[in-house]
């Protein structure tokens, strides 16, 4: 009985919220009217049409696949380089002081501002898009790994030292596990950041991807097409976040009470 009730409340709320949203949308459509704000039904019909034809030579699924591939490659690269760098910066003082100034100059530049130079450097293929997402994810990974490491409870490290742990053991058995919560906050942010960056890169110039879908809708002056694209983007973004939350629960089980 309990499970059924939990399922109900878990399913009921999102369904209700989507329902309310669609109702408000329909009302707005009736007030504003016309082609500016298409009705939910028009958008649904457009979605059916879009999934059955090829847009720019690719099906919608292929566009989704292209965007996701860019994000995943850039994200993994960002994690593979950013996490060790940030952790080492937080662990070794000299290294921190060496790298910090350059990093601090580059950090406030939004990843999106890298788009023009990325295109200049890497042409207009997959390169610049992956690069932009990489920059977005990398900075967040470094910052969070650094913060987690740097603000490890000094007491824990002091305790490990007292018990005669070597530097290595202090690092791998104390500091890294202690920095995990902060790292995981970064893991989430980095993914939503690279998802946003891939969109921006695809809006500026691409022949495929979900960003291309909505820019195509704009060029053809088709608000329903843009809205279908936006809904797809929202669903993928939300699912990516949900997957990571599950993953976090597996890797950081001691934080279960917090999430």
């Amino acid at each position, binding site marked *: 009985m309990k499970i059924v009730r939990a399922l109900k409340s878990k399913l009921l709320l999102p369904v209700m919220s989507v329902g309310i*949203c669609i109702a408000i949308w329909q009302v707005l459509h009736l007030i504003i009217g016309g082609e500016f704000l298409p009705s939910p039904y028009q958008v649904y019909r457009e979605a059916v049409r879009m999934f059955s034809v090829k847009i720019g030579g690719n099906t919608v699924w292929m566009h989704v696949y292209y965007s996701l591939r860019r994000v995943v490659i850039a994200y993994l690269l960002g994690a593979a380089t950013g996490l060790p760098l940030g952790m080492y910066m937080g662990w070794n003082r000299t290294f921190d002081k060496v790298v910090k100034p*350059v990093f601090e100059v580059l*950090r*406030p530049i939004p990843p999106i*501002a890298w788009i023009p130079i990325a295109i200049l*450097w890497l042409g207009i293929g997959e390169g610049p898009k992956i690069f932009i997402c990489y920059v977005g994810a990398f900075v967040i990974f470094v910052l969070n790994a650094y913060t987690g490491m740097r603000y490890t409870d000094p007491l824990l490290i002091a305790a490990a030292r007292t018990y005669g742990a070597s530097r290595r053991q202090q690092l791998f058995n104390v500091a890294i596990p202690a920095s995990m919560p902060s790292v995981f906050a970064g893991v989430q942010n980095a993914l939503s950041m690279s998802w946003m960056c891939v969109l921006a890169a695809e*809006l500026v110039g691409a022949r495929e991807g979900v960003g291309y879908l909505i820019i195509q809708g704009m060029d053809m002056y088709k608000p329903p097409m843009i809205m279908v694209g936006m809904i797809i983007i929202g669903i993928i973004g939300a699912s990516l976040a949900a997957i990571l939350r599950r993953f976090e629960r597996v890797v950081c089980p001691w934080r279960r009470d917090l999430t």
Partner: protein
Amino acid sequence: MDAIEAAACKLPLVPRQPTPYALKLKASARDNYISIVSFAAFLVAWELVCRLGIIGAYQLVPPSQLVTTFIMKLTNANPDGGTLLEHTETSLVLALTGFGAAVLVGVPLGLFMGWYKPLDIMVTPIFDAVRPIPPIAWIPLAIIWLGIGLPAKAFIIWLAAFVPCVINSYTGIKLTNPVLIRVAQIYGASNWETFYKIGVPSAIPMVFTGLKLSLNASWTTLVAAELLAASQGLGYLIQMGRRLAKPDIIIVGMLTIGFTGALMSWGLNRIEARFASSKRVRL
């Protein structure tokens, strides 16, 4: 006796270790030297890479040339139709307009949503449905709705800044210590009084976190909007630099974007330290 001494000698010797970084929170003079030297080394390496022709002039320019371009762009409107200050002003006005409007709407909305149940139930579903869509994805729709002028960009920036404002104000006021609320009620405070004397002050640290996120988001989104549709502004400047294949203009533009963004965050941090430091808000 001998046996004990022998055993003591066999104990592994723990070597003298440097103090772990986590135990040191203050920078020393030596640290600053290291930083300055490493930054100088970075600039020299960059200069050399360009001067020796390892990277072509159409891809990267040496820092020395950046300085000349920067000085030139301060007064010269060529080749993109505006001096650096004009571009910066356009972008700043736009970003701060969107940000200001978002704060004016978002913070009160978030606070009320967190306090008044009916409003929460009404607004949260809409909010949750719209939130996963990144603000940048609204750009095409905004352009169709509002044209490519200032209103479209202001709308996008407003949207980008609005979301963190609402979420943080909402969370902040939800986390108000229930004991304090009950105390206020016992002393006969009305709901409204409890709201603005207990709820709002205790939410302020979270609200400021939201403001910082908002400011960041609005600056990032501004660049995206200006890359896509603008005739002036820093995003437009770097886009023109790309069209003209002039890396010096792009990099000067990027550094200006970064610097201006950092300056705004710094200003906001100062305001926070002045009005909302944890010492002032003691709840």
